């Protein structure tokens, strides 16, 4: 005899059956139906349903007793083009299609936090059904101008190079753009980890669009290991999922994030990546016989991303002051940021972080191109502490980049030039950061202060990271209360600055002595 199912209550089952019978006793009425005339490639062409609305959900009778969901995407005079959500092999020509009277909705709420779901809100993690009490529409209009407030609160990524030079604020859209395997997702993951480490209370939503399932699985495993999964929702579609699901995934994720935004909370959403999203939309549009434009994308591919990214906002105080910050990811080919989709998304977002392949292979990771990266929100989204030490960082690095190329051809450099180059090398070295180790505010402050005050100018290049580690260890061990004060984000007073500089000099001195001894 097989083991009985756990949690089966016969009383509940009996009640369910009785209420189902009661519903069935109501006499069926004539209902509007359509007929599937053609089906293939995830698209069903339907005759009838003349009162169908755009994006309205339909159910189509499949073989057996299945009912497959679709949504109306092309409303023609003679027929409707409906995109199938799920397996289209169960549908045959002649099948009956019915209207549901609803547009696509997904479950929303705190019940989704910690779960891995598909774009319809169905669980993929094997942890049972999601008992969400609310649902909301996948396609929604973004808040208007009067409902918004300027971005003024920092969203700390924990990555020194970003928080110092390309700061991101809550409610901002900052694009992560670069070739494949340059660390775009790594930055996004570190940002999520930092929200947990710094106890910011920000809810993360990671939307995987057409990613390899192995990559998504590894990412989820890492999030679990770091303890971040408890404040994260993962909306996953793989490369083998239908284009319709890949198309819906970012919108579904945005709807889940808006739940928190609209209730005064803060959420961070990562779209990984919108290049695949555009490709999925192109596939759907071509199958629906929409006219192709540039690079075969439909004419409204800009609108595809603009309406998505406009939903990331910082709301006004009257609306609860919640925020949804977006980190969309775009993959370029051979570093071409002037291609169609990259330029579209660059013009929509509030800045971009450009990852360069040659920096990555030089060992500069995160491989952020300081020259091409920008945050249009800027200092408004920076903590006062980091702002006070990061002012000259960009210009120092810019000068170093100019001079570095020059120095390869000349050995006879004046002291000023040599100093700038050496300072730039040390800054570059200090901005390198291992994966999964986001820094807190006090750590970033201490590192940048030591660098910009020239404390490490005499430390050999290969010992810089060790010196940095020693500085942080000593500050944490010997001055924990001071570092807690710095971690609040307020600019430290001169006394504390001098203390940190003194400690940094002392550590640098120890390396100079070491160097003398070896010589």
């Amino acid at each position, binding site marked *: 005899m097989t083991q009985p199912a756990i949690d089966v209550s016969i009383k509940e089952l009996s009640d*369910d*059956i009785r*209420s*189902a*019978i009661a*519903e*069935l006793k109501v*006499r*069926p*009425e*004539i*209902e*509007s*139906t*359509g*007929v599937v*005339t053609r089906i293939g490639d995830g698209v069903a062409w339907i*005759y*009838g*349903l*003349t009162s169908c609305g755009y994006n309205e959900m339909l159910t189509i009778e499949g073989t057996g*007793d299945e*009912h497959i969901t679709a949504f109306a995407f092309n409303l023609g*005079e*003679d*027929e409707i083009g409906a995109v199938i959500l799920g397996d289209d092999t169960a549908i045959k020509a002649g099948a*009956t299609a019915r209207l549901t009277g609803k547009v696509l909705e997904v479950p929303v709420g705190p019940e989704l936090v910690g779960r891995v779901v598909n774009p319809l809100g169905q669980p993929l993690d094997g942890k049972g059904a999601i008992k969400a009490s609310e649902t909301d529409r996948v396609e929604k209009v973004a808040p208007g101008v009067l409902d918004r407030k300027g971005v003024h609160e920092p969203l700390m990524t924990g990555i020194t190079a970003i928080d110092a030079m390309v700061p991101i604020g809550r409610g901002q859209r900052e694009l992560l753009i670069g070739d494949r395997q340059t660390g775009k997702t790594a930055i996004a993951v570190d940002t999520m980890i930092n929200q947990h480490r710094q106890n910011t209370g920000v809810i993360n939503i990671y939307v995987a669009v057409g990613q390899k399932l192995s990559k998504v699985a590894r990412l989820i495993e890492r999030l679990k290991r770091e303890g971040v999964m408890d404040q994260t929702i993962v909306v996953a579609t793989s490369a083998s999922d239908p284009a319709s699901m890949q198309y819906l995934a970012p919108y579904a994720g945005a709807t889940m994030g808006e739940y928190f935004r609209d209730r005064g909370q803060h959420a961070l959403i990562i779209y990984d990546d919108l290049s695949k999203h555009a490709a999925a939309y192109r596939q759907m549009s071509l199958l629906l016989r929409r006219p192709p434009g540039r690079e075969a994308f439909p004419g409204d591919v800009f609108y595809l991303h603009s309406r998505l990214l406009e939903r990331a906002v910082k709301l006004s105080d009257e609306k609860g002051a919640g925020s949804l910050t977006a980190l969309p990811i775009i993959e370029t080919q051979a570093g071409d940021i002037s291609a169609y989709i990259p330029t579209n998304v660059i013009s929509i977002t509030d800045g971009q972080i450009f990852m360069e392949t040659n920096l990555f292979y030089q060992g500069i990771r995160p491989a952020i191109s300081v020259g091409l990266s920008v945050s249009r929100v800027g200092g408004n989204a920076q903590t006062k502490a980091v702002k006070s030490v990061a002012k000259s960082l960009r210009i120092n690095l810019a000068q170093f980049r100019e001079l570095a190329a020059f120095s390869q051809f000349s050995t006879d450099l004046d002291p000023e030039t040599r100093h700038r180059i050496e300072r730039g090398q040390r800054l570059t070295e200090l901005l390198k950061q291992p994966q999964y180790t986001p820094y807190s505010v006090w750590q970033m402050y201490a590192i940048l202060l030591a660098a910009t005050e020239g404390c490490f100018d005499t430390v050999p290049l290969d010992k810089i990271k060790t010196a940095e580690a020693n500085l942080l260890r000593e500050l944490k061990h010997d001055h924990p209360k001071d570092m807690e004060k710095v971690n609040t984000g307020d600019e430290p007073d001169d006394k504390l600055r001098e203390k940190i500089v003194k400690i940094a000099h002392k550590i640098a001195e120890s390396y100079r002595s070491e160097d003398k001894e070896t010589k």
Partner: protein
Amino acid sequence: MKQSRHLLAQAVADKTLHIKDMKQLSREVAAYLLHEGLVDELDSLLRDVIAIRAEHGLVEAEAVSAHQLSDADLNDVRAILKEYYPHAKQVTVHQRLDANLVGGIKLVMPHQQLDESVRASISKFKSLTAERA
């Protein structure tokens, strides 16, 4: 430019209301569809025509059942259709057998359907209990 199927259906429906020689009309429509390469759209075109004729009071429906319907059953079906189409001047019912329905009857019209078959009830019952689960 491709002719709108709805306009074509309108023209065909108008002809069926006035013409006496249906064979001639069939040949003309067939020739037109072949010439325009619209043969695949014949089924949809005919549904349009039925729908337009229904607007003129000539209601046609297909009654699908698992077993042959008696004359009394057919009269009942006509009475149901007259309830839903009170302005109908003529009601025509075509029969089709489909053992998959198990029992009961399904009325199929171009844009509408009334499904009182046993199969539909079982399917709905399954979906209702699945939702609750």
